């Protein structure tokens, strides 16, 4: 049960009565009837326990979009329900600053009817959001008091990664088609495969004439080629402590995910198979065996609940997991950090095993803040900051150089540049037939 402000107001106005009739009887003259009215109001309010609640609506939403979750309230009693309803979700389910107003709604449900109210969620973080509880305050007809109770109506909304990099997808797909179109004519070489036979037209390279086919048919026939398809991509995300560091306001892991999603979308359109492994000391997520249109949804779902952990990544088991997930020659894209200590002591000694069998790309999220620090001048603090940032940059370049010497392609870019850069690297490798 709950009181309303009206009851307190009447009690305050009762001070006049207490002034006119000093003594306990004056106070009783006000308080006893007031309490009786409160009890009557509670008794007349529609019961909360017997309400029936049902949910429906969105189960997934991309971070930054709105999800509409409906709540249907049925009032089986013979009294009208005048209620204040709070649909309680974790704070990060609401757009910033609206967690109070967004969760509270008023509604009236006549006896025996039902009403639907819609909760608009705008999650600010990736992951799963679960509805906590629905609290209902049923006001009495006099407005002095209310009944209150809670219902638990389970519902969860998967908040998918924002995939901001999808804006780059059309441009990269255009490049992919260009690649396709260019090479499907006559250019033959490493990384291309047989596409089709077609009649010779003037201007075609005579070296492409397939004499065997020409002999079978009555006209001169040439072979055409296209970039190889059905290659295998393995995306390996390092979810250790270096992935937790925030660049801007986003963890490195989320920036890597963005790039991974763009790469997945691009590669699945290019006809390549994409698998994914997220690993720190153990394998956290593994997506394998999806193809075609299923890949992007599967990868998105798998990445949704993934959070970085504050542990040191075990590079040995990371490489072992990658090798196990890529039985045949693949393009292995390793999302990790180029911080020299981690890399030189951990990854560098074990990376050759991976490089032997696969083409390896290391993608790393660079911090634009470091670049700003490098440009710092004028004050002692700024110059020392610039020196520290310059040293870090030099170390990163040294690490990248060591990796390049191993034959690894290194993509080191700021969060907003990483997805297109990585897509470019993929397209270049594909065009070069390195897959």
């Amino acid at each position: 049960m709950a009181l309303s402000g009206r009851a307190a107001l009447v009690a305050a106005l009762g001070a006049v009565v207490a002034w006119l009739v000093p003594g306990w009887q004056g106070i009783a003259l006000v308080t006893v009837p007031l309490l009786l009215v409160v009890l009557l109001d509670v008794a007349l309010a529609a019961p909360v326990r017997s309400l029936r609640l049902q949910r429906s609506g969105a189960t997934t939403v991309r971070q930054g979009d709105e999800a509409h979750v409906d709540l249907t309230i049925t009032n089986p009693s013979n009294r009208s329900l005048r209620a204040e309803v709070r649909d309680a979700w974790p704070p990060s389910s609401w757009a910033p600053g609206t967690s109070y107003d967004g969760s509270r709604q008023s509604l009236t449900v006549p006896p025996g009817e039902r009403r639907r109210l819609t909760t608009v969620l705008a999650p600010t973080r990736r992951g799963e959001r679960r509805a906590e509880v629905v609290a209902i305050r049923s006001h009495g007809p006099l407005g002095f008091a209310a009944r209150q109770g809670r219902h638990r109506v389970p519902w969860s909304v998967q908040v998918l990664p924002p995939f901001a990099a999808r804006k780059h997808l059309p441009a990269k797909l255009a490049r992919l088609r260009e690649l396709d179109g260019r090479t499907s004519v006559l250019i033959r070489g490493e990384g291309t495969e047989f596409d089709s036979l077609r009649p010779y037209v003037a201007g075609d390279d005579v070296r492409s004439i397939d004499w065997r086919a020409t002999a079978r048919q009555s006209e001169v026939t040439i072979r055409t080629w296209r970039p190889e398809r059905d290659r295998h991509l393995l995306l390996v995300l390092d979810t250790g402590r270096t992935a937790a560091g925030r660049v801007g306001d986003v963890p490195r892991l989320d920036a890597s995910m963005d790039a991974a999603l763009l790469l997945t979308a691009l590669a699945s359109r290019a006809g390549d198979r994409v698998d994914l492994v997220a690993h720190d000391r153990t394998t956290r997520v593994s997506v394998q065996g999806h193809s075609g249109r299923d890949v992007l949804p599967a990868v998105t779902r798998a990445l949704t609940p993934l959070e970085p952990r504050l542990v040191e990544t075990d590079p040995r088991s990371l490489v072992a997991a990658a090798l196990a997930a890529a039985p045949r020659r693949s393009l292995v894209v390793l999302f990790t950090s180029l911080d020299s200590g981690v890399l030189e002591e951990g990854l560098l000694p074990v990376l050759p095993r991976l490089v032997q069998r696969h083409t390896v790309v290391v993608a790393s999220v660079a911090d634009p803040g470091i670049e700003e620090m490098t440009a710092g001048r004028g004050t002692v603090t700024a110059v020392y900051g610039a020196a520290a940032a310059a040293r870090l940059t030099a170390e990163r370049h040294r690490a990248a150089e060591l990796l390049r010497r191993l034959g690894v392609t290194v993509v080191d870019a700021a969060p907003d540049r990483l997805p297109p850069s990585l897509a470019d690297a993929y397209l270049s490798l594909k065009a070069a037939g390195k897959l």
Partner: protein
Amino acid sequence: MSATTTAVSPDSRALWRGGRGPLLGVVVVLVAGVLLAVLRSGDGGALRHDSPTPAGALALTTLLAEEGIRTTPVGTAAEAGRALGPDTTLLVAFPNAVPPSRLTDLRREAARADARLVLVSPGEGAVHRIAPGVELAGEAEVDERQPGCADPTARRAGGATLGGRVFDLSAVEGAAACYGQGSLGTLAVLGATDGTDGTRAATVLLGSPEFLTNDALADDGNAALAMGLLGATEKLLWYVPDGSEPPPEQDEQSLLDLTGDNWRWAAGQLVVAVLFAAVWRMRRLGPAVPERLPVRIRAAETTEGRARLYHRAGARGRAADALRESTRARLAPLVGVRPSAPVSELVRAVGDRTGRPSAEVEALLAGPEPADDPALIALADDLDTLREHVAQLPGAGARPSPAPPSQPPADPGRPPAPPKKDTP
């Protein structure tokens, strides 16, 4: 109601089931408290003239009554003062419970009425009010003691159960310290000028009430001592403070006294209203929902920490090295020198391109550690100037240079081999 109900708030039955345990506990505690209070109420009649308990004094007053001495109980100091008269003894059973100002009044009135005062186990404040000059000198064990003094009453009584507070009478003329040693006594008789019968003793301080009680009255000479001390006069006033002592009068009136009744009751009703408002505001709509918070570490934190370390340690050499290395790495591709080439080669190339003296360029790119922080700041600016100078030269970077490792980190990185255009 139905199996599909989603309600999770407890109904009245669940509330009763969950609440009856604690409620039972509260009831048990309350009942036990009331019982204990009833059973142990009062102080067991300690030193009351009509109490038959071991600590009471009914035996003594009965004995005195047989001797024809009337015992009159009084409850307040004012009453005692009014009843004082000649040939009267006033026994103050708990002088420490009497307001000090009242004790002073009592002493004055006793002196005026020529009455005797007997104080049982007085504290320091009470002693100073009643018998100036007497000091307390600690505590002694309550035991059978010998008088060891000239006071005739004590001598007649002989051994008695005394102890408790010890009075130091060394600073008082004409006083007898009994049941102690020398001028220290657990029974102090003051103003006993009449050496023959001691009936005129003005004030008696008792270190312990033990020998007056029903329990100990029959032992040793306790009865004789008590009779001697309290039965020397016709009337005995037995003053046990009953707690109804009116407080000392004050002339000031508080604001509450000045406001009218109506206003006070109106204010009382406002307090009730505040209670209603509190109940209204404190009831929240459902519980607070917890959030599983993500880790918040800025990736640049370690670098900033390193910068602060450089600063605190004054590591100008290291800082200058880092800045020079960064500038060298950026200059090398601009002037067409391998990144791995020795510094002298770079210095020569830069000197040639810019026309600056070699020595100046070398001091800038590979010079000594800056002497102080301003020099470091100046060095950073000079390096910037040099780099911009080289970058603005016509044809900078036009010569083929190897892949620069020193490009800004936004460089997408390049694959190990450029895409092949065609094949033979």
